[in-house]
């Protein structure tokens, strides 16, 4: 079923499709869906111009639940499909929805390259640190020790961090958010949408069935203030219930530490100010893990450069500029040709090499 966009501003609910939602009751995906509908309304997205592309997984069912265009493709390949869409029509507003397995296990290569090329898409990586759809095997983001059907003794692999990985690929926009933070998530999504180029948003998403509470140690209400830091460009890196804590560089090192400014000789000005254009700072923030350090949320890095598909289009535009309709006869008669049946055989085109 399709929604013909009315003239007046669309409400979040207008972005919902008529399909029954088939996630487990309580799944974090519901909250993300809500935040996305909200964001689409906030940014005034035109449904006919908006495309959601996904791979395979619970997360990847996302496009079915929106009234926009949607393509539920194959496992891991959504970034490649999205790249093709943008090459065909750079004006489309393309979102990718992927899971931690989809994006970082089978799809790691395409993630690398879409970020490196800087194709203008929003890439939402629903990280539940597990394979939901295939019933609970560990994923590349699962923490060491995770017991699953394929790791009955607990996983022995070091997990990859989506944000750290993205920074390593040269991504120009990297953010992190939590599924249920409806105050925060739409804002981050809107920033991603505003960014021209590939924007990666890692969304920590609770899988109630196979990995319930895996983020509870820093998302639970009681600990949230102390175990999360919401970063904002140009603002000091403060957190805690009353903002009483801050992050500074441990003097003489390249490491972050938590300080209580005002306390024990730590000056307010020692606290680092978030600079989202600083890749090194972004890396330090992205690598923080609880309980020793708070989890960094918000836009960790944003430093735009021209997007890939616009540059491709510019090359084609430059080449076609001034041409009228493509002339096939001219194409075929490039290079050396000769004529038979004329008074004598002769070379038609001058030598070109």
């Amino acid at each position: 079923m399709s929604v013909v966009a009315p003239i007046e501003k669309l409400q979040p609910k207008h972005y919902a499709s008529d399909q029954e939602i088939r996630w487990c009751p309580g799944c974090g995906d519901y909250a993300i869906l809500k935040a996305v509908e909200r964001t689409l309304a906030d940014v005034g997205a035109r449904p006919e111009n908006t495309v959601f592309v996904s791979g395979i997984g619970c997360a990847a069912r996302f496009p079915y639940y929106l009234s926009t265009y949607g393509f539920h493709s194959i496992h891991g390949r959504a970034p490649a499909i999205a790249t093709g869409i943008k090459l065909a029509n750079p004006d489309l507003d393309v979102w990718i929805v992927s899971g931690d397995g989809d994006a970082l296990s089978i799809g790691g290569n395409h993630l690398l390259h879409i970020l490196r090329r800087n194709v203008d898409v929003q890439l939402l990586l629903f990280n539940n640190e597990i394979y939901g759809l295939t019933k609970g095997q560990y994923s590349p983001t699962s923490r060491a020790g995770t017991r699953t059907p394929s790791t009955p003794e607990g996983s022995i692999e070091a997990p990859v961090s989506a944000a750290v990985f993205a920074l390593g690929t040269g991504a120009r926009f990297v953010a992190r958010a939590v599924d249920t933070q409806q105050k925060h998530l739409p804002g981050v999504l809107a920033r991603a949408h505003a960014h021209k180029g590939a924007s990666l948003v890692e969304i920590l998403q609770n899988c109630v069935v196979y990995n319930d509470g895996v983020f509870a140690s820093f998302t639970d209400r009681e600990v949230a203030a102390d175990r999360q830091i919401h970063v904002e460009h140009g603002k000091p890196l403060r957190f805690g219930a009353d903002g009483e804590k801050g992050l500074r560089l441990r003097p003489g090192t390249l490491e972050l530490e938590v300080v209580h400014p005002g306390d024990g000789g730590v000056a307010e000005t020692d606290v680092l100010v978030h600079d989202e254009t600083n890749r090194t700072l972004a890396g330090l923030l992205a690598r923080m893990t609880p309980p020793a350090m708070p989890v960094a949320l918000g836009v960790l890095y944003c430093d735009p450069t021209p997007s890939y598909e616009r540059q491709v289009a510019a090359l084609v535009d430059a080449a076609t500029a001034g041409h009228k309709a493509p002339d096939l006869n001219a194409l075929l008669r490039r290079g050396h040709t000769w004529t038979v049946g004329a008074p004598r055989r002769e070379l038609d085109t001058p030598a070109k090499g």
Partner: protein
Amino acid sequence: MEGSAALRRASPQRKQLESAVVRFAGDSGDGMQLTGGRFTLATALAGNDLATFPDFPAEIRAPAGSTYGVSAFQINFGGREIKTSGDTVDVLIAMNPAALKVNLADVHAGGLLLVDIGAFGEKNLRKAGYDHDPLEDDGLKGFRVIKIDMSQLTLDALKDTGLSKKEAQRCKNMWALGLVYWIFDRDRQTTVDWLTGKFKSQPEIAAGMVAALNAGHAFGETAEISADIGAFTVPAAAIGAGVYHNVTGTEAMAWGLVAGATLAELKMVFCSYPITPASGILHGLARLKEYGIVTFQAEDEIAAVCAAIGASYAGAIGVTSSSGPGIALKAEGIGLAAATELPLVVINSQRAGPSTGMPTKTEQSDLYQAVFGRNADCPLVVLAARSPADCFDTAIEAVRLATKYMTPVMLLSDGYIANASEPWALPDANGFARFPVSHHHETNGFQPFLRDPETLARPWAIPGTPGLEHRIGGLERDYDTGNVSYDPDNHQRMTDARVAKIAGVAREFPPQPVELGNDHGPIAVVGWGSTYGPINRAVGNLREEGLDVAHIHLRHIWPLPTDLGDLLRRYEKILVPEMNTGQLITLLRSEYLVPAEGLNKVTGKPFAIAEVEAAVRARLEA
């Protein structure tokens, strides 16, 4: 046999030949491809029909003098229609011992060897793996060997040009070309012009090249040796009037894709990952941006096919191209295109396998992969190009069928036709049938999988169109609404519809032509793809002998033409030559229960005409 018997009949003074096969062979650095290209153009201008085949080394730049660094260029030209680049070689120009060693086996008994003895020093002999000089013993007894110190003669000719010895040496291919021009009475002027143009910024080099060309030619005119060589004319062929271009399959394929997209009035997004021998299509299209072509070098083959699918989804015609191993990687993606019923063109420039195999050698062994190589019941259209120029037509056909039926189309080419060339009478593009595609716009009653009752194609509704927002994907979908469906009967119905849609494509095929011979009889030779030339000439030769042989050549591998079964059943025997261990034959036998027999060759080389002739004879006598 084409060309092969030619020179044996030659007498000293400009003997007229029906056709001749010449091969230039030398080190990778000797410029043999360029030399061959010049000879080809001069020959075309002389009015011959011709076919060429380059044989590059697998290595980028193998050590000088090594056997695996030998680069060769073969041309078959004649006063009659030429169908292959020639079974055996009449004249071999061997610029060093390795070139002689590698190429000798293809020269027929009595053939002419023009050897640059200046390059037959001990070091080069050793590098070629000779423990003694082959020119000094009986090994070449059956051939007419002309030893010339081309290296020295070139240096001598250029001694006043001011070129360094190294620079002068690089002109020796032109010396050789000059001599061959003399032998075959070719005009040098276009080559002189071309050299002057090419080395505009280095006029001394240009002058040296021209001087070497002229010196080689003069050597033929004056040297006492010329009597041994013989001098020939090959009369102009009866070629239809028109503008001609000598086209490789790679070039024709790229142009055909541009033409297809233009005729469909669609943007083309060509997505590929480099691989031998397919990369040339990417390179060619990357230079055609003025036709609005977008090329995308993807990170791998999977990304390439998926980007092409994305492009088609967004309303362009997505094309992807690779060779065997890369096509294998695309299988899952192609299945997605088939399931979502999006147009997609997949070009496979086949090469010898399995696995990496012999990347620079040709084979036709991906027919199975094309027809069957995906999970589940996943039919699609498979076409095959038969010659370099035919790549143009089949590429247009691929775009047309893909968009008309909303289906992936696999287009099979191979390493041979990718690199081989033939003169092509350039068609007038204004006469091409256009098939403009209009994306779906009607919102009333729109359902993404509502099929056209005739073609069974679903509507091509693309993002950006208000009111047609919908979702597609690889999960089975409802026949009516397109929504995800696990309904058992629906799956049956959709599977049947997918099969029927592809089968239905055959309804629009013209009746299967018989290329040569009668539509019934004792034997038909049935081929597909690049075996066209040798089969056609072999059957032609046999028919000239009075044998009742027919040649049938398939462009449509899947679905097969509807009348093919009846046609085949009218022959007593069916012979299927393939450069594989027997793949098309599996289709013919299982579809029509005809007792077709295979003639199979997997050496990385095309069939010789003689091989096909012999096999047909054997069947007729059996």
